């Protein structure tokens, strides 16, 4: 029977081509992901191992029991001193010790805009060695910084800023803008810098002044003489360290930690990609099953003959499954090769766009090969399983039928019943989900979505009749007989039409769902950014470290400024650690000038008398009422909590500006070290204007990290950020859609093949080639639109139900149907239909009429 299977595969090469393509694309996705993550993972591991090559021991300062930030609100204190560095240096086996200060500094470009993200903008001290140079940072131009007025930058940042040697660099660490002269441009291999951050170098004394205290360091990096035992050295260093305020780690341990982190982030990425690859393969299942069903019905006479001459049912099943296995294997091998190509290309493309993946050899692990091939073969065989059962049911007597009986359509009663039950269960769960507020567990939503989707797929043949008829009415009206025939052909085999459309539907459901939820969520968060705000400007810092309250005071005294209201915050736990909260400390005298507060009970005046106000939703959650007093424990940065009693003086409607809880700055400041203004809300006397905006900036230090935004800018701040995510999702789901298109091509090609005689007859009685093409094309469009309508419909429903969960967390959430995008999806389905039909329609139109009429 295996020979029969092999012969069948070879005999139906052309007809199996599309199926093979579906498997191939799915496997390419899987193997591309696996090879890419293996290759990049290996390269990153090697690169990080190299960066720890010269590190024997690393000593890190820790805060221990002391608060991380000292009372004075100034720089942190460490116990890593010059004396300690010297002690370490004198240990046997130590070659060199680098004593590092670590901080963050963001450089301004010519327009005073920050370069890079603060969290990856590294600042450290330049430590000239014996030759007057720091080996870690080879100088490209100029020299290393040697005095308080000097700074050196990495090449990329220097280029981005447009600064030349001798220019003044504007930058900020924490407070107001600082200025230093650019004396050197260096090369850096620091991973944060290669990933897009910046590097600023100062001489040691300056760096200490900026980030710690004179004579203090954050880290000692020890290099050992050759032949020194790392472990022993680490132990020796450890003995010198002040208890609880520093830790020593061997270079090997650091490299291992780093490798583990790389591995984890790599796995997280490949897991995400594999989910999408899985969706693509799932879509492929429909195409494979469809093909085998069609092949078996075409071949039923042949199979009956095999049965008649003595093949058992089991042999028939095995033969079909062997055929599927063979097809799966061949497609998977080609798919794997394609996937490997994709992996290589992907790295090159991502690197060209600045992703910064290190170079390294292509890694093809046996694991990746086996999983990709295994998945490909398994999916194909699994998809062919049901059709193979059908093949086994063919009676031997069918071999004797001379006239081709039209394949009997099995009843859909059982299928429809199962479909109705599954859909109902899915919809019921989603309706339940839509009543949830603040649900943290998304399992029911996921289960409900999956059930709804599967249920609709099962019901698709039933749904195909009314929906296809509806679309068919339009095509009949517009295109006449071609449109009518297209509709009838699409209705001819509801299972086939449904399976083909379902493949497209899956992709579109996910795309639509994510689009609707994403766009709605984006709008909600945009709205929330300025909700309740009556101030003209909101001032904040890009690094979220806040502003000096002294500067805020100065800004408040500017002419034209009515009030500059600071917002500070402190976090606490409630009920002995079972809940968390955050309180906003603000200038209560002027608060009503910058935000519209609506009190449900109590009043702002009562809060001014030393109480706190709670938002309505938080009050409900905590069961707090006006007039009550509750004990909370403020976080201090250490294990200890500072107990405090809060008197509830009022409850207000939720307000995004002040958050869940607010009180006076005097109440919050003791728990907020150092005291910083996270945001400052500015109310002007005569409305916003550009001159005043500049004045405010200046008063607040004019740091490049400073953000002065009016309401419009606040709303737009994150606008478009959802597009990046959605575009990525579209790209990843694109593969599923492409496979679905392959499925449409496949179905049409099969249909044209099966209807050769009809097409011949239609040509004979006078339907022109163009009419035949039109008929096939319209059938394709009808099927595609059916899939699209189902997909968009289900997607919108799931987004509606799931979105209600978000409404709890985001009071401004409201479902928005992005009609433009939905319209584009529908249009794409239309185009997909036309494109998918191109080849089958051409073939149909070119059929030899006489041969076709006589074809069996």
């Amino acid at each position, binding site marked *: 029977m295996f020979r029969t299977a092999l012969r069948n595969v070879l005999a139906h090469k052309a007809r199996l081509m599309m199926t093979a393509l579906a498997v191939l694309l799915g496997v390419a996705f899987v193997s591309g992901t696996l090879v890419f993550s293996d290759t990049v993972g290996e390269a990153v591991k090697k690169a990080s191992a190299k960066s720890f090559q010269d590190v024997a021991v690393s000593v890190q300062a820790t805060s221990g029991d002391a608060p991380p930030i000292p009372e004075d609100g100034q720089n942190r204190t460490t116990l890593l001193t010059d004396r300690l560095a010297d002690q370490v240096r004198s240990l046997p086996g130590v070659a060199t010790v680098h004593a590092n200060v670590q901080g963050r500094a963001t450089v301004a470009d010519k327009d005073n805009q920050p370069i890079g993200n603060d969290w990856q903008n590294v600042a450290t001290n330049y430590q000239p060695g014996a030759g007057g140079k720091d080996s870690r940072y080879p100088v490209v131009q100029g020299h290393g910084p040697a005095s308080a007025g000097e700074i050196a930058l990495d090449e990329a940042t220097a280029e981005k800023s447009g600064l030349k040697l001798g220019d003044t660099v504007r930058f900020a660490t924490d407070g107001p803008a600082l200025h230093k002269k650019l004396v050197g441009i260096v090369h850096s291999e620091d991973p944060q810098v290669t990933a897009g951050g910046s590097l600023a170098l100062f001489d040691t004394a300056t760096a200490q002044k900026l980030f710690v205290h004179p004579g203090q360091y954050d880290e000692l990096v020890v290099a050992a003489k050759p032949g020194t035992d790392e472990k022993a050295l680490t132990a020796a260093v450890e003995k010198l360290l002040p208890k609880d305020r520093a830790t020593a780690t061997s270079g090997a341990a650091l490299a291992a930690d780093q490798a583990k982190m790389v591995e984890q982030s790599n796995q997280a990425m490949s897991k995400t990609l594999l989910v999408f690859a899985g969706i693509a393969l799932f879509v492929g299942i429909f195409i494979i099953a469809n093909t085998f069903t069609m092949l078996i019905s075409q071949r039923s006479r042949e199979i009956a003959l095999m049965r008649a001459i003595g093949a058992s049912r089991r042999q028939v099943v095995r033969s079909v499954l062997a055929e599927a296995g063979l097809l799966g294997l061949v497609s998977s091998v080609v798919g794997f090769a394609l996937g490997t190509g994709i992996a290589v290309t992907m790295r090159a493309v991502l690197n060209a766009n600045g992703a910064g993946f290190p170079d390294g050899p292509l890694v093809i692990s046996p694991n990746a090969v086996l999983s990709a091939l295994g998945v490909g073969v398994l999916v194909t065989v699994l998809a062919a399983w049901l059709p193979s059962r059908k093949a086994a049911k063919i009676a031997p007597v069918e071999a004797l039928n001379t006239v081709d009986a039209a394949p009997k359509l099995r009843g859909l009663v059982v299928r429809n019943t199962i479909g109705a039950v599954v859909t109902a269960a899915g919809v019921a769960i989603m309706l339940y989900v839509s009543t949830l507020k603040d649900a943290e567990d998304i399992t029911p939503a996921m289960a409900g979505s999956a059930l709804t989707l599967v249920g609709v797929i099962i019901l698709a043949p039933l749904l195909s009749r009314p929906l296809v008829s509806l679309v068919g009415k339009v095509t009949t009206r517009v295109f006449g*007989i071609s449109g009518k*025939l297209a509709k*009838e052909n699409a209705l001819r085999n509801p299972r086939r039409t449904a399976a083909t459309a379902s493949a497209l539907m899956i992709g579109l459901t996910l795309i639509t769902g994510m689009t609707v939820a994403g766009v709605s969520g984006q709008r909600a968060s945009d709205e929330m950014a300025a909700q309740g705000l009556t101030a003209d400007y909101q001032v904040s810092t890009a690094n979220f470290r806040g502003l000096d309250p002294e500067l805020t005071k100065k800004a408040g005294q500017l002419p034209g400024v009515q009030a500059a209201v600071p917002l500070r915050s402190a976090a606490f736990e409630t009920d002995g650690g079972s809940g968390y909260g955050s309180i906003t400390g603000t200038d209560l005298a002027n608060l009503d000038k910058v935000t519209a507060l609506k009190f449900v009970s109590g009043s702002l005046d009562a809060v001014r008398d030393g109480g706190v106000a709670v938002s309505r939703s938080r009050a409900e959650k905590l069961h707090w009422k006006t007039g009550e007093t509750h004990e909370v424990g403020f976080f201090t940065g250490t294990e200890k909590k500072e107990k405090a009693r809060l008197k509830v003086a009022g409850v207000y409607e939720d307000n995004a500006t002040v958050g869940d809880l607010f009180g006076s700055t005097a109440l919050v400041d003791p728990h907020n070290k150092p005291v910083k203004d996270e945001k400052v809300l500015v109310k002007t006397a005569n409305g916003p204007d550009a001159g005043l905006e500049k004045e405010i900036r200046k008063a607040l230090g004019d740091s490049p990290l400073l953000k002065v935004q009016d309401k419009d800018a606040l709303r737009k701040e994150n606008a478009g950020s959802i597009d990046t995510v959605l575009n990525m999702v579209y790209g990843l789901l694109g593969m599923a859609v492409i496979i679905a298109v392959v499925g449409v091509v496949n179905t049409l090609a099969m249909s044209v093949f099966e209807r050769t005689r009809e097409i011949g*007859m239609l040509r004979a*009685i*006078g*339907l022109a*080639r163009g009419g035949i093409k039109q008929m096939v094309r319209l059938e394709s469009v009808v099927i595609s639109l059916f899939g699209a309508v189902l997909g968009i419909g289900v997607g919108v429903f799931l987004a509606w139900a799931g979105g209600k969960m978000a409404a709890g967390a985001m009071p401004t959430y409201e479902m928005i149907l992005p009609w433009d995008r939905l319209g584009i999806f529908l249009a794409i389905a239309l185009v997909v239909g036309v494109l998918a039909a191109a080849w089958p329609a051409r073939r149909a139109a070119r059929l030899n*009429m006489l041969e076709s*009429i006589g074809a069996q």
Partner: protein
Amino acid sequence: MSHAAAFPAPARATAAVAARATDLSKVYGQGETQVVALDQVSVEFGRARFTAIMGPSGSGKSTLMHCMAGLDSISSGSALIGDTELTGLNDKKLTQLRRDKIGFIFQAFNLLPTLTALENITLPMDIAGRKPDRDWLDRIVSTVGLSGRLKHRPAQLSGGQQQRVAVARALASQPEIIFADEPTGNLDSRSGAEVLGFLRESVRAMQQTVVMVTHDPVAAAYADRVIFLADGRIVEELYEPTADAVLDRMRLFDAKNRTS
């Protein structure tokens, strides 16, 4: 649609010839593998006449029909339907010609399974975008005895009924000429006789022109005239044939072929 201009209304009442072949040749293949299917055949098919084409397998009878019906190209010579010359027509014009001037009946019925009997009957007119003549349609439907079955799909009809639908389809658009290719080949003798009766009736009562390819002497006996083909040439003609006369001629050819 510009076919009305391309094909002026047939002068059905005046011309006595519905279709004519002059020195019609059809050659398949090239060089050594060349096969002459039709060798300079000249023949006229009279209007309102029922002509049967007979001959052994490979005699060229089907090829003659295909060439005359615009289903196959012509190697040399000429073929006319009404007064339209087929040679030199492009595919689009040929298609229009078939649609508007020719009716077809096939051995294997060739109905569209998705359409009802009535929709199958009006299919050529639907393709042309014309409204069928209601009275004519009713007359045809009642003639072939399908009145109660117009809503049925082909799968719900017997073979004889299906072929009657095919006959009605050919008649409905009142074509210049109907070509029938072994119309009784897939039918039992009773259903076959019915179908042949309808064809004969359409010639008598509706002045329809019918050309039928067959190998069955009984079927040929329904025609006004039988043309015998052998090796791509017309070798014999017989008017007002009877089944026995046709059979005799066929035996004669067989004997000739064997001795030659």
